[in-house]
């Protein structure tokens, strides 16, 4: 490498001086490369770590915080989960970028010894009106289905939003959930002096060299020259790697194991040694490779996919190796565990790098300056009185149902195998997916949520709402909110304004999690999400899992039968700020976000959950984007084989009808139940002080909504379904 190369590797002059101080000499090419990736935001979190520390690590369930993923313990069963971003690679090569994102997060789960049982994906794109956004959207979906379907892990949920702030910088956040007996878990550590370090999986090529530091830590400009190579995902090899790894762990001969994700060998060697408080001596000649004459630093930086590093108990190498060979994978002992706390990398015996593991993994921590953006003053200025009410509420509702962010997502999730492993009892299309835990009568519910428009206008409240809504979705499925993973997608942290967003979102997550008493067990940070036009909306994606205590008490969102009573738990306020309706009908991203009162939220959720668990509820659906009217429509039509109308004639709040129908007041759940259950549910609501109101009745072939005595909405279910059900397909294929 030429002098000053460290800059092109993303290291600052200051960081370079720091490295000289640590080594007390000039770094070799390999050492420089290793520092550059380990200290990049992607691996070392230098700019975000200080703030990640404030997230609660304990909650109502016993937590496990691992090196890669984290999880909770339920009846001796470990539920491991994590979310990770693959934004920049997906923007560069949508299909392979998304595919390798899925592959990476799956490895984070089974590297802990847990069998992956579900995937979710939280996606954000620019508007589909632009051809290039369409191309990225199609490519990303293609990549997720290509990888997820083949690897045999059901993709059971997720979310998709469209907003112009994501034009030129899409977001692809993938979440994976795995389960294991608590006793089967392994750590990503190199322990046991003299134990062997074994490389397993695919061979190494020059894939994505420097991708980790350069790709993930620099704003991506269209047509930028320093374009990194994107990796190709190989779900077939990953599937074999899952089986081989779990089989190997089962032998008890695996002392530690870690997946080679970002920064491949560098990340694995240094982080495993550091976590094990040990050292490692590795010979690069033993690394299986795909290409000729690769430089040592290339081998250390390569991000070739589907590889793991295993710490194997001394003397058991052959037994472990046999398993990987049986599955058609590479397996090669490349080194030993030492006790000198250093990572020593050799090429033909010659030392090419020797660095204290801790100095690599303990990246410098920067205290980034933050400043409230000036534009917020203007953006939050908003007077409802200046907004004309719609003349035709039917039109307004139909239009809102067709908005891609609200419309039916079946076009996407029907391309995902969401049933393999025969655990999915609530399929995509309801508030949260539910998976049974075979051999128990419990089930897991999972969801991802984040309204980035809220976070843009008020990051603290926006993040709290993301947590509240995720919990609400779980409750509507009959689950108790249990624990959180997050994926923090933000713009360039060197801009005080975008760091202000980062800080406030994290504080919002912290406070909301504390009030729900749920821990953040894992997560991931993606900064520098900027397109040539702008930085993205702050997007702290929340992944939350919940526990259903009795499989047969699971609940879904669609009305089940005519003649049921429709109940609204929660309060509707005169709020239109930050709503989808305001953006759609008035082209305004303005106003203050809906008020969120976490006490009220919990009251509503506790009431709904108890009613569901007592078997009193036939359907439950939360109100989110599009407000009450959209939520009611979804209750009517979201099971296309059984659409059921409703007559909502008892809604007299004295607030404007547009706010009542389309406003996004928080902490509201729509329930349907048999007439006979109404009083029981009322009592439960009373007990928790949750606002309760019978607002109508199911049945008929139309959705009819009155405000006071005025009938404002009356639409045939077919029309509702046509707009909502067909919209996405029309906008993509049409």
């Amino acid at each position, binding site marked *: 490498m030429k002098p000053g190369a460290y800059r092109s590797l993303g290291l600052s002059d200051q960081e370079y001086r720091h490295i000289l101080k640590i080594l007390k000499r000039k770094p070799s090419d390999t050492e420089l490369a290793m520092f550059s990736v380990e200290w990049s935001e992607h691996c070392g979190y230098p700019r975000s770590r200080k703030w990640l520390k404030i997230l609660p690590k304990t909650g109502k369930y016993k937590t496990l915080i691992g090196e890669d993923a984290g999880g909770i313990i339920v009846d001796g069963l470990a539920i491991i989960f994590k979310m990770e971003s693959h934004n920049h690679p997906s923007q*560069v*090569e949508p299909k*392979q970028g998304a595919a390798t994102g899925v592959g990476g997060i799956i490895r984070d789960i089974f590297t802990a010894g847990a069998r992956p049982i579900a995937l979710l994906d939280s996606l954000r794109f620019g508007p589909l009106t632009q051809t290039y956004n369409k191309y990225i959207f199609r490519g990303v979906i293609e990549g997720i289905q290509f990888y997820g379907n083949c690897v045999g892990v059901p993709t059971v949920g997720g979310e998709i939003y469209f907003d112009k702030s994501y034009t030129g910088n899409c977001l692809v956040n993938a979440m994976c959930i795995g389960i294991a007996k608590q006793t089967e878990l392994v750590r990503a550590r190199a322990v046991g002096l003299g134990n062997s370090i074994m490389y397993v999986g*695919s061979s190494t*090529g*020059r*894939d994505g060299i420097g991708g980790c530091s350069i790709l993930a830590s620099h704003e991506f400009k269209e047509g930028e020259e320093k*374009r990194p*190579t*994107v*990796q*190709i995902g*190989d779900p*077939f*090899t990953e599937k074999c790697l899952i089986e081989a790894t779990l089989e190997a762990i089962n032998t008890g001969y695996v002392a530690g194991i870690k997946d080679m994700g970002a920064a491949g060998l560098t990340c694995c060697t240094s982080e495993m040694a550091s976590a094990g408080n040990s050292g490692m001596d590795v010979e690069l000649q033993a690394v299986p490779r*795909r*290409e000729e004459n690769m430089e040592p630093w290339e081998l250390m930086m390569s991000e*070739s*996919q589907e590889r793991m590093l295993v710490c194997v108990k001394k003397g058991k190498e052959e037994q472990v190796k046999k398993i990987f060979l049986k599955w*058609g994978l590479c397996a090669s002992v490349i080194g030993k565990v030492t006790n000198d706390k250093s990572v020593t990398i050799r090429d033909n015996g010659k030392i090419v790098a020797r660095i204290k593991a801790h100095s690599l993994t303990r990246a410098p921590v920067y205290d980034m300056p933050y400043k409230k953006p000036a534009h917020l003053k203007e953006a939050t200025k908003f007077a409802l009185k200046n907004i004309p009410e719609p003349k035709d509420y039917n039109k307004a509702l139909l239009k809102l149902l067709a908005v891609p962010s609200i419309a039916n997502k079946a076009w996407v999730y029907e391309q995902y195998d969401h049933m393999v492993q025969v655990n999915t009892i609530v399929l995509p299309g309801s508030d949260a997916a539910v998976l049974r835990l075979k051999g128990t009568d419990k089930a897991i519910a999972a969801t991802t949520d984040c309204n980035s428009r809220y976070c843009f206008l008020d990051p603290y409240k926006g993040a709290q709402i993301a947590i509240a809504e995720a919990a609400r979705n779980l409750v509507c499925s009959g689950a108790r909110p249990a624990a959180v993973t997050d994926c923090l997608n933000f713009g360039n942290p060197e801009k005080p304004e975008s760091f202000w967003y980062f800080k406030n979102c994290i504080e919002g997550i912290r406070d909301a999690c504390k009030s729900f008493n749920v821990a953040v067990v894992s997560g991931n940070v993606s900064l520098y999400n900027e397109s040539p036009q702008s930085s993205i909306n702050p997007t702290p994606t929340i992944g939350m899992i919940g526990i259903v205590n009795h499989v047969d008490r699971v609940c879904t969102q669609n009305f089940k039968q005519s003649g049921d009573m429709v109940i609204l738990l929660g309060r509707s306020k005169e709020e239109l700020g930050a709503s989808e309706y305001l953006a759609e009908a008035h082209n305004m991203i303005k106003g203050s976000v809906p008020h969120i009162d976490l006490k009220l939220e919990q009251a509503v959720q506790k009431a709904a959950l108890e009613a569901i668990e007592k078997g009193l509820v036939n359907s439950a659906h939360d109100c989110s984007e599009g407000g009450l009217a959209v939520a009611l429509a979804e209750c009517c039509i979201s099971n296309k084989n059984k659409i059921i109308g409703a007559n909502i004639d008892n809604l007299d709040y004295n607030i404007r009808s547009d706010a009542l129908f389309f406003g996004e007041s928080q902490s509201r759940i729509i329930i349907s139940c048999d007439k006979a259950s109404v009083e029981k549910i009322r009592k439960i609501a009373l007990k928790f002080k949750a606002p309760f109101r019978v607002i109508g009745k199911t049945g008929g072939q139309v959705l009819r909504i009155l405000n006071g005595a005025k009938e404002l909405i009356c639409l045939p279910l077919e029309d509702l379904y046509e707009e909502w059900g067909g919209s996405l397909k029309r906008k993509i294929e049409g």
Partner: protein
Amino acid sequence: MLRAEISITLKRTVADPQGLTIRHALESLGYKGLADVRAGKLVVLKLNSQNKKKAQQEVEQMCKKLLANPIIEEYRFKITEE
């Protein structure tokens, strides 16, 4: 009428899992002496045109814009009279 045969393959530096899998399959069928196997895509166009020169440029454009992603793929094409 012109016929354009476009071959799209992954760049040398990019892993080709499919090619590798095909290679193993061929080897297990007893075919030795394979130095390399790469898989790719083929697109065959028929163009109502006589102007080979113009076709050259058009097909070049098609590859750049739609058929191949220059970040991972490379393409070659051959245009012949029909």
